[in-house]
């Protein structure tokens, strides 16, 4: 379970979020500029809130009052960034293996093969990020986060630049991860169908605040 | 002292000595088993290095003040210090200059000689040749006129180059340097009494290897004298 209660000011933008994500997958839904990326950056530890606390499964990740701020590399939270952020100097293989090396994990051949097939990136292993298409980069970024064996996943519009066929491969995989492995996720997406399919809870953010009741009405109003 | 086998004698010598000293060392090594290596640089640096414990056996300074500097620190053997070589100060001009046979005395019209150009000299505050030049101009009562026209080079060699390239119409250097540079000609010689004697003192250092003695003696021998003379130096003190 993830408990978030934070405040953060970025320039003139003010983010205030207070929620408990009891269900496995929580979707963050809201207009461009509403504060979705800012919020998951704080859960991941890349940005420190000005105030408040973040607790994941009983472990305090951040607590301004008690001056706790678990460093990013110890949080074990996989992050699929909105803009890929692959390592430009490493080929796809090494990008995918990076998390395993850094965390000293054993090679899980089965999971590896499975994830590669699901993302259809098996042929790209020797290329560098600069030689990939936009969607290929995004898929490698998904694979990289999955292969580090995280205890939680942050997904920032992971399927935005992918075609329907790809989405149809990846979504079921995430569903299985949710159901079989019980992996908690914060899932940012603008696609109502996607969100409806994967998330049990939907948090609607508008202008830096969590809206009180994410009713179907609200959703439909947004996804006009 | 007894001649030891195959020692290396390390000489610290003023850079302007290079040609003559290299020739003398070559002659020395033909007759002796010992090897002579020379570290050439500015006398100032050499003196300070000796002060800091440099492994020098023999020091040849381009002037007396730096030799006095190490002597005061008791770093040389006072019994084996000698004013070995001398030099003369000359006025030079580019080889195609119209100037020639200038008598250097207090009536010299420097402004006419330079006609607006500069007089290339070695640094008059630091470099021995420059110090002698300054003393000479002062003695002759020409300093106040000369000073604003000076181009002070890092060393004699650089002053020589400025005249050789005709950047300066005249310059003041040692006769040894002037003779070695074909693109300049000597147009006048400073009277010996116009400046303190130009002296290259030599001394064996306090911690010198035994073999240095033979080398010190050689430098004052007739054989060495011939070589130094050939390079234009005046030998002030030879034999023993």
């Amino acid at each position, binding site marked *: 379970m993830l408990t978030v209660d934070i405040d953060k000011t970025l320039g003139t933008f003010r983010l205030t979020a207070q929620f408990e994500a009891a269900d496995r997958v929580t979707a963050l839904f809201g207009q461009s500029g509403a504060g979705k990326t800012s919020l998951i950056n704080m859960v991941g530890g890349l940005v420190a809130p000005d105030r408040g606390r973040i607790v994941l499964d009983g472990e305090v990740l951040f607590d301004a009052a008690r001056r706790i701020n678990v460093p990013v590399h110890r949080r074990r939270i*996989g992050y699929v960034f909105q803009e890929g952020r692959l390592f*430009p*100097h490493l080929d796809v293989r090494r990008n995918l293996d990076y998390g395993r090396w850094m965390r000293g994990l054993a090679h899980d051949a089965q999971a590896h093969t499975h994830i590669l097939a699901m993302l259809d990136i098996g042929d790209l292993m020797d290329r560098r990020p600069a030689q990939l298409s936009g969607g290929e980069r995004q898929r490698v970024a998904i694979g990289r986060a999955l292969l580090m064996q995280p205890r939680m996943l942050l997904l920032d519009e992971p399927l935005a630049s992918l075609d329907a066929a790809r989405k149809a491969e990846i979504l079921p995989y995430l569903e299985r991860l949710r159901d079989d492995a019980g992996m908690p996720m914060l899932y940012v997406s603008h696609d109502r169908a996607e969100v409806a399919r994967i998330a049990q809870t939907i948090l609607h953010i508008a202008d830096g605040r969590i809206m009180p009741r994410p009713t179907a009405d609200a959703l439909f109003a947004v996804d006009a | 002292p007894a001649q030891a086998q195959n020692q290396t004698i390390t000489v610290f010598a003023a850079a302007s000595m290079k040609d003559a000293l290299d020739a003398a060392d070559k002659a020395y090594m033909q007759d002796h088993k010992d090897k002579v290596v020379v570290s050439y640089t500015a006398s100032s640096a050499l003196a300070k290095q000796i002060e800091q414990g440099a492994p020098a056996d023999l020091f040849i300074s381009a002037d007396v003040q730096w030799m006095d500097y190490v002597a005061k620190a008791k770093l040389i053997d006072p019994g084996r210090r000698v004013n070995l070589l001398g030099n003369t100060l000359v006025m030079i001009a580019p080889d195609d200059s119209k100037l020639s046979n200038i008598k250097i005395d207090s009536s010299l019209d420097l402004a006419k000689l330079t006609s607006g150009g500069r007089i290339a000299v070695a640094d008059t505050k630091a470099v021995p040749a420059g110090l002698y030049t300054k003393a000479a101009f002062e003695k002759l009562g020409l300093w106040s006129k000369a000073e604003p026209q000076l181009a002070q080079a890092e060393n004699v060699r650089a002053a020589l180059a400025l005249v050789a390239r005709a950047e300066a119409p005249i310059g003041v250097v040692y006769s040894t340097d002037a003779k*070695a540079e074909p693109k300049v000609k000597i147009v006048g010689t400073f009277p010996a009494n116009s400046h303190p004697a130009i002296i290259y003192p030599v001394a064996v250092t306090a911690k010198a290897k035994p073999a240095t003695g033979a080398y010190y003696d050689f430098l004052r021998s007739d054989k060495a004298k011939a070589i130094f003379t050939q390079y234009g130096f005046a030998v002030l003190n030879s034999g023993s």
Partner: protein
Amino acid sequence: MFSLTPEEWMAIELSLRVAIVATLFALPLGLVVAYLLARKDFWGKALLDGLVHLPLVLPPVVTGYFLLLTFGRRGPVGHFLEQTFGIVFAFRWTGAALACGVMGFPLMVRPIRLAMESIDRKIEDAASTLGADPFWRFVTVTLPLSLPGIIAGTLLCFAKALGEFGATITFVSNIPGETQTISAAIYTLTQVPSGDAAALRLVIIATIISLIALMLSEFLARRATARFHGL
């Protein structure tokens, strides 16, 4: 003209040894200092920065005297090192390497620092989310992404080490076979009228060595950047 005399060979060999050793020892320190200056804020940062640049601003003779007074046999650091570890810089080629390293240091630090400052921090953040602690993140991301700067800095330091003589000659004198590098030999030759031809020979040799080093660094830099741009 180009059969080299034994002394010339000796000077070349010594110059290369001095320049290579100076550069190799300066590199790890240069990486650390560049990283500190690029990324950290700490008390005395401006001082460190100034200290690094000082050998560039002061006449080499001054740096040389300073080294002589500090690292000479009778200098505090030199004395300590000799007594404790038996390391002697004074009038040895190691001292020449020290002088060259100090003189080349500012030229090494700047490009590395520049490269580190231009790295997209977001890539480093990504490494952190994948479990890389600060040390491994530095080794696996920051260092390789600064490679062009590291190559440039290493080259400048090496070139400077080849060309240095002012500080060297003042610190460890100009002893053939021990501390007389090509540059010092050239300097000596320029001090006497008869030295021009011999000086020119050495100038040509120094030029050739530096051209080779340059071409090597270009080649490495090209490979390094080609990688990122995916060519």
